[in-house]
């Protein structure tokens, strides 16, 4: 079976801005694939290229094996959930959801029946007569989802769909989206700047930086084996150590939870002596801010009985296997 999406050396430039700059990737059918990156990293432009809303400057887009780089959005078997939902305010919820069927000439009875089914699937049964303006943010989100799914696309694009929701609703929707994707078995491409969202939902994640893919991996590998300093810092938090400080060559990432904090100064390999700057008690965990030389390092440990005085001497220690060597320059 051919890949759902193939991007081949894809670029999209707006004047001097290289929004997408030579991206290669393959998305497998049925995959929950995330594009993660800070704003301006090219992830949304990349999604819009797949949807057909932007024209590539160079390179190719293949959807299910077919070349699609120049097809208009309405000729692609792809649907999108927009960041601002883009519901049609002059139509009620039922007509919004049935829109894709209406423009294809499906009869009224049939399209309303299927719209009602879709609304049930997103837990909005009975909301058909309302206007989008009468719904809450979370409900609008579900309408946008139902509208995009009614045509049973093989590929759904989601552009920061949960960005406008509050934290609790967001977490609920994450679980629902993932469950929906599993039950429908269709491919999701999900754009987000929230690394925890990307890690918890995705099968694979592409981390974008300055129009390029910095690393493409499963969430676990992305976190455990960040390839560059950018990925190490953007996905989770990381201490980046110069090798020279610990008697090694190159640069290394060290996750805060892999560091042990002990009172007093101790010598030895795989440890550094420093001064405790601050302690944040977070309940089950405690976060320590430590100055080592002119660097500030963070350590996170399960909370225990030990109480370390702020300003006092501490020693940070780690297993050699916790160090991840980073590529220094690309």
């Amino acid at each position, binding site marked *: 079976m051919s890949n759902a999406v193939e991007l081949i050396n894809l670029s999209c430039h707006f004047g001097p801005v290289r929004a997408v700059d030579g991206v290669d990737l393959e998305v497998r059918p049925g995959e929950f694939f995330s594009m993660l990156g800070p704003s301006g990293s090219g992830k949304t432009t990349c999604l819009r290229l797949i949807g057909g809303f932007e024209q590539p400057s160079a390179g190719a887009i293949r959807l299910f094996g077919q070349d699609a780089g120049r097809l208009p*959005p*309405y000729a692609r078997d792809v*649907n999108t959930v927009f960041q*601002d939902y*883009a519901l049609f*305010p002059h139509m009620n919820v039922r007509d919004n959801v049935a*829109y*894709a069927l*209406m*423009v294809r000439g499906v009869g009224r009875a049939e399209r309303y029946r299927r719209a009602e089914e879709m609304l049930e699937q997103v837990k909005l049964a009975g909301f058909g007569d309302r206007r989008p303006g009468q719904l809450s943010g979370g409900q609008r989100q579900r309408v946008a989802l139902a509208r995009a799914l009614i045509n049973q696309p093989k590929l759904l694009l989601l552009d920061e769909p949960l960005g406008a929701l509050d934290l609790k609703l967001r977490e609920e929707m994450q679980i629902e989206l993932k469950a929906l994707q599993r039950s429908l078995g269709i491919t999701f491409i999900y754009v987000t700047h929230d690394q925890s969202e990307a890690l918890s939902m995705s099968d694979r994640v592409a981390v974008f930086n300055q129009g390029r893919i910095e690393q493409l991996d499963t969430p676990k590998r992305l976190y455990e084996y960040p390839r560059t300093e950018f990925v190490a810092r953007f996905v989770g938090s990381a201490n980046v150590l110069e090798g020279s400080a610990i008697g090694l060559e190159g640069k290394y990432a060290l996750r805060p939870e892999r560091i042990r904090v002990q009172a007093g100064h101790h010598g030895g390999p795989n440890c550094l002596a420093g001064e405790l700057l601050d302690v944040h008690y977070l309940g089950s965990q405690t976060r320590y801010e430590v100055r080592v030389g002119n660097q500030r390092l963070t350590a996170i440990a399960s909370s225990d009985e030990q109480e370390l005085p702020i300003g006092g001497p501490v020693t940070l220690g780690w297993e050699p296997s916790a160090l991840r060597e980073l590529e220094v320059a690309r």
Partner: protein
Amino acid sequence: MPNKPSLGLRLAFWAGMLFLHFPIVIIVLYALTTEDRTYRFPPPGLTLKWFGEALERQDMWRALLLSLQVAGMATFIALVLGTMVAAAMYRFQFRGKDAITLLLILPIALPGILTGIALLTTFKRLALEPGFWTIVIGHATFCIVTVYNNVVARFRRTGYSQVEASMDLGADWFRTWRFVVLPSIATALLAGGMLSFALSFDEVIVTTFTAADQKTLPIWFLNELFRPRERPVTNVVAVFVMLITFLPIVLAQWLTRDTDDLHGGGKTS
């Protein structure tokens, strides 16, 4: 807490309103006077007979019909071109965009006499005979901007993602226009169109430069003023015209209430 205006301020307000609208009351009053040569005050008596006389004046009907046709055609042209230019200005970034905005506003900002002379010169150059269509073109130049202003404001408020959503869901350009764009700008078109119609309907200066011997209603009025007899007929027609221009403007304002869309209402000429 809203402040209550002082007594002096309220008096000044009502004095201003009276100053602005007293002439309109006079027009209505003299449509009913029994005396037909001079505007004597107070009127010696009141009658409704001028309404009957006005309805039988064929020259008035011809002028009214011409004005309605001109205003209708100019509004139609303004709706089409104004919407197209609004779409282009909203959607695309290009060199000279600010210059185009200025060019659009110029016909309404320039004194009508300049617009009129410019049009007349141009028509002569192009060897266009003055007539119905030259009047329509003249009026359309300043009607376009009222439609443009209303529609571009609506576009900005609606955002482009609805268009993208429609195309994403399988609608081509035409259906997207039909099912999404047009419904969302419908009231803006109505408001802009009504303002255009009203602007065109009472235009005098540009019309005098672009017409041959055609008399639109405002020009018919000017001519009537020099007639010695049947003066109240003019006032009767004026009352009709007030209704014809007033009602659409009130309706347009009502249709776009709660929005700040009603732009370009005032023509300075």
